[in-house]
């Protein structure tokens, strides 16, 4: 039996945005009552359009941000309000991989030292012991010893992402939060990294919180998926349920928008009207009602509740479900 490695319930985060001539503050609800859980060794992906709150959710779980509300349980420990000094253990278990391998690596450090940095912070291993681990990890991510004494700028995008992964792996984390880890890469390199992430998962039983706007990538890598819109998860469930039996009108539109790399395939496309509303001024009622092709009167005023669909663990927030 696998256990729940991560359980998030009702987390919220708002940002204060100064606005207007009189500097009156406005509040932007970036994450608004988000809940999900991940079993150890599985991948849960958050997918949605830019600004919907995916990265903010990842940063809350990794406690780079502190939620204003809700609970975050990692491996049986509740960490949502803990101070940095109390987060040491959690910081070893949880590592992050970021989108931009160019920006996330220090250009003045040798690869060897970049990868060893977490060891320096979290452990008391000797220099020799550290370097032995670095050599080991380099092999795991498909780099070699000769790469260790070079600087990050001497590497290609895909190689830099491998360095980022090596750095995350060296602490033998239980949970990796990967925020758009392949979005900046060419498809040929993207597939190398996706394959690597999958191999590492089966080898070390790592749990992933995977963040991406690319539905094809998400389908390939996930066990469970949460579809986000304006700070909330509008639908979540097992991968197959989301892709073969989507229930929320937004999920349906999102899926139908993905261009299919097969010219013989002609699908019905749901073209949504208009743009994403500003999260500073979100719609009342259902957050999706301004663009929803099947919106009803009730949707304008009343926020739909989370409803479980027939299938286990498949949840949808839409008035069409609750009626």
């Amino acid at each position: 039996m696998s256990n729940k490695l991560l359980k998030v319930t009702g987390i919220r985060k708002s940002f204060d945005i100064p606005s207007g001539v009189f500097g009156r503050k406005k509040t932007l609800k970036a994450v608004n009552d988000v809940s999900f859980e991940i079993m150890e060794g599985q991948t849960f992906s958050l997918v949605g359009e830019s600004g919907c709150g995916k990265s903010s959710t990842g940063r809350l779980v990794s406690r780079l941000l502190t939620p204003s509300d809700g609970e975050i349980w990692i491996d049986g420990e509740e960490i949502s309000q803990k101070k940095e000094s109390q987060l040491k253990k959690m910081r070893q278990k949880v590592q992050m991989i970021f989108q931009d391998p160019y920006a996330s690596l220090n250009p003045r450090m040798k690869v060897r030292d970049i990868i060893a940095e977490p060891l320096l912070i979290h452990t008391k291993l000797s220099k020799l012991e550290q370097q032995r681990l670095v050599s080991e990890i380099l092999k795991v991510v498909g780099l070699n010893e000769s790469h260790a004494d070079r600087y990050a700028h001497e590497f290609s995008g895909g190689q830099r992402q491998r360095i980022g992964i090596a750095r995350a792996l060296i602490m033998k984390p239980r949970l990796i939060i990967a925020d758009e880890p392949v979005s900046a890469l060419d498809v040929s390199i993207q597939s190398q990294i996706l394959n690597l992430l999958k191999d590492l998962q089966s080898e070390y039983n790592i749990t992933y919180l995977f963040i991406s706007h690319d539905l094809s990538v998400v389908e390939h890598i996930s066990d469970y998926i949460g579809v986000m819109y304006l700070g909330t998860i509008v639908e979540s469930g097992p991968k197959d349920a989301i892709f073969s039996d989507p229930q929320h009108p937004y999920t349906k539109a999102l899926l139908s928008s993905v261009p299919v790399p097969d010219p013989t395939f002609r699908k019905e496309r749901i073209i949504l009207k208009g743009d994403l509303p500003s999260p500073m001024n979100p719609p009342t009622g259902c957050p999706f009602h301004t663009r929803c092709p099947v919106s009803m009167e009730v949707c304008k005023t009343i926020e739909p509740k989370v409803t479980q669909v027939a299938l286990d663990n498949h949840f949808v927030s839409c008035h069409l479900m609750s009626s």
Partner: protein
Amino acid sequence: MSEKLLQVEQLQTDFTKDKRKIRILHGVNFHINKGEVIGLVGESGCGKSLTSLSIMGLFKGTSGEITGGNIRFNGQDLTSLNVNEMRKMRGKQIAMIFQEPMTSLNPVMKIGEQLMEPIRIHLNLNKKQAKEHAVSMLKKVGIARSDEVINEYPHQLSGGMRQRVMIAMAMSCNPNLLIADEPTTALDVTIQAQILELMKQLQQQENMSILLITHDLGIVAEMCDRVVVMYAGRVVEEADVFDLFEKPKHPYTQGLIGSVPKIGDKRDKLDSIKGNVPDPSDMPIGCKFAPRCTQVMPICLEKEPTSMMLENERLCSCWLYDHERGETHV
């Protein structure tokens, strides 16, 4: 019979770096028929954007220079035009849209003024007529509040709206050829779907030709009639879109198509292409793809393959097809 609108022949483009010339495009060949949508694909750095900038003659501020070959548009060689003649061509007959609309929209000029400028120059309309035309173009690209939007500045619009404005501007003088370099890469997928739908509609209405540069093979499959695959500044394969996806010939194309995760595809492992694109200043001899190719043969390391014409008028530069070649092209 299809009529050729644009013909790029043996195009060579160089940059100068530290007083040394570095060749980026090494004899690029392809053509676009009237009313046809051509996809130009390949990994980052293979020369897609540079091909389009060469066609447009847009090297301003860089050391880029066409050093060989020619580009025929409606029979006229664009490389022989002077700056003024080229400026007339741009905007009127050939228009371009870029990935990031803010690079081509002027941030301190109202949308309406920016739209009216090319309209007045190229279509010889007075101010009032130009304004009417601008508003109608904005309506055409699906901007609802077009009467108000003409008085707004680019920063007041969303990314999707800016891209629509760019398209309106590009289409305003009814060009014969639209070059779109990653026109939706910066947009969300639901907005991308809107923009692609719009481009398709306008293309069909006006029987315009499009050169669509993208790294997204899904977009290629949905939008294009024919596909040109580039690698290391060369065209390595060219084929009808159905043929290309059904049976890619070049090992590079095979690798690219196999790398793409597809919804509903149950593969546990994706294909990938080992290694990286070679540096333009440090190219292997022989086939430029050889260091990454899974089917490399001894000849590949010595001699660069030439473009071979295979069945269905498809072209492929790879020694694997030497025995199949019908006629040698170029």
